[in-house]
């Protein structure tokens, strides 16, 4: 479904991603793990189209999207969530989600008809709110939500664009154990209809959710495989997992 071929990115002299080759197949949860500064978020940015890719190619559903702008990639079915919560803070939960639904349902170059007359948008937004556990909070202004709720909305915005592949950048960042469990359940449920590329530091979550795991160290993929394989890989243990598992 998604193929990265020799993708690289430099910031000045710093190599952020270095010749990354990776394949995400339809229907899987593919986890991307690695130490801080390994280039995970940079890679997500490149796939989403926010960061330019200087060399290498990104192929999505057979089409080369390397040079496509971010909004065109969403139209093709590729959505992302952010590590640092990025929502429409002064909009209500429902308006946040309805806006994301609107982005994928026909043109928005309509200037006269009130959005509120479009029942379908808000019905879909309510359905997403239910999925992410915010049914009772739809009228709350996003800025007033608790941290865990904001994280759920963050993922909900990506889901509301009806993607085929969703890039989740540390969905559990800063969450307590209870919220983390809810997020794991949410990802487990969404995998039934969406392919997931999951960047996450919570190893418990990664090993519970992932079908396959790729390990990124210093901008390079040092291993890709099933969770059991990755757990046993001596190079991965030395480079990354050792410290994490010991902790």
């Amino acid at each position: 479904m998604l193929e990265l071929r020799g993708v690289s990115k430099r910031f000045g002299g710093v190599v952020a991603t270095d010749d990354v080759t990776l394949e995400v197949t339809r229907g899987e949860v593919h986890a991307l793990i690695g130490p801080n500064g390994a280039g995970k978020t940079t890679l997500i940015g490149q796939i989403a189209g926010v960061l330019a890719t200087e060399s290498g190619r990104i192929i999505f559903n057979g089409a080369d999207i390397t040079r496509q702008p971010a909004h065109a990639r969403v139209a093709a079915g590729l959505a992302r969530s952010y590590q640092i919560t990025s929502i429409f803070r002064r909009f209500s939960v429902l308006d946040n989600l309805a806006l994301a639904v609107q982005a994928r349902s026909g043109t928005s170059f309509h200037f006269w008809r009130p959005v509120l007359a479009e029942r379908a948008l808000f019905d879909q937004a309510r359905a997403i709110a239910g999925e992410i556990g915010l049914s009772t909070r739809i009228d709350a202004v996003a800025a007033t939500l608790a941290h865990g709720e904001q994280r759920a909305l963050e993922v909900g915005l990506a889901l509301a664009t009806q993607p085929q592949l969703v890039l989740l950048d540390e969905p559990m960042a800063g969450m307590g154990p209870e919220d983390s469990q809810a997020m794991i359940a949410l990802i487990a449920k969404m995998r039934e209809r969406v392919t997931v590329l999951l960047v996450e530091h919570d190893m418990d979550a990664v090993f519970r959710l992932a079908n396959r795991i790729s390990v990124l160290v210093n901008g390079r993929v040092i291993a890709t495989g099933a969770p059991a394989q990755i757990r046993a890989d001596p190079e991965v243990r030395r480079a990354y997992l050792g410290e994490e598992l010991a902790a």
Partner: protein
Amino acid sequence: MRAIAVFLLLAIFPLVMQAMDNLFYVSFASRVLIYAIAATSLNLVLGYGGMVSFGHAAFFGGGAFVVGILAVEGLRSAWIAWPIAIAVAALAALVIGALSLRTRGVYFIMITLAFAQMIYYIFVSLKSYGGDDGLQMPGRSTLGFGTLGNDLVWYYVVLCILAAVLYAMHRLVHSRFGRVIAAIRENEARAEAIGFPVYRYQLLCFVIAGGIGGLAGALIANQSSYVSPSLLHWIQSGTLMIMVILGGVGTLWGGVIGAAVLLGLEHLIADYRIAWLAKLAPNYQDHAGLAVGIVLLTIVMLAPEGISGFFGRRRHA
């Protein structure tokens, strides 16, 4: 409902003034309403779109010059000249916006300012159309029936146009397009990330505002049948911006309230001599700007969300 009440009052106003034999205020009120249209158009980009354009005078003054030049050349029909003014202003907004919207923040402010100043200097040096002295028109535009030369008729024409502009704005900000514009103002990166081509939406918003600004310009040229290059000057952009901030950024009535308060203040200070103040500073009325500044400062300090914040309306999210 409140809007209808306001427009009813505005509709009765000239009749009252006529009964009091005080037609000066009808003409003054037309001027306020025209500025209200201009400030409202700026509020669309500045308030709803979050684009701090410091060059709105380009569209306002541009529209005025289009109507002025056409009138001098013999084309005086409002049905033709005004749409041309709108189209030219919108086209200018398309060019200026297409280049300026590639920048952000202070750079956007400076680039829009620079474009507007370039246009100002072009018209100042156009000696055949008045240059520094401005352009005297042979009279107001013609409608084909009645005459716009009558100040009462003129007032009602302007009032109808303001009503239409406000209604269209109201529809626009609650439409799909309006929601996207508001979302981009709130969080541009996320708006792009959920699939909106941000640049196109911002540019179109800029063009619509430019077109309405051009319409206001067409009206201001007719107000006194005279087009001054000062309409294009950056001070004009600043004045419109002050009106928007004063009235309420991103509120439907912000431009109207701001125009009324600012122009009303200027008029009060210039026309009514306060005896005790005149004793202290005999020529204080020559420096109305200072007094206006102090009053503005006070209002903005007391009402950081603009005067419409006093009316308890929530900002449009």
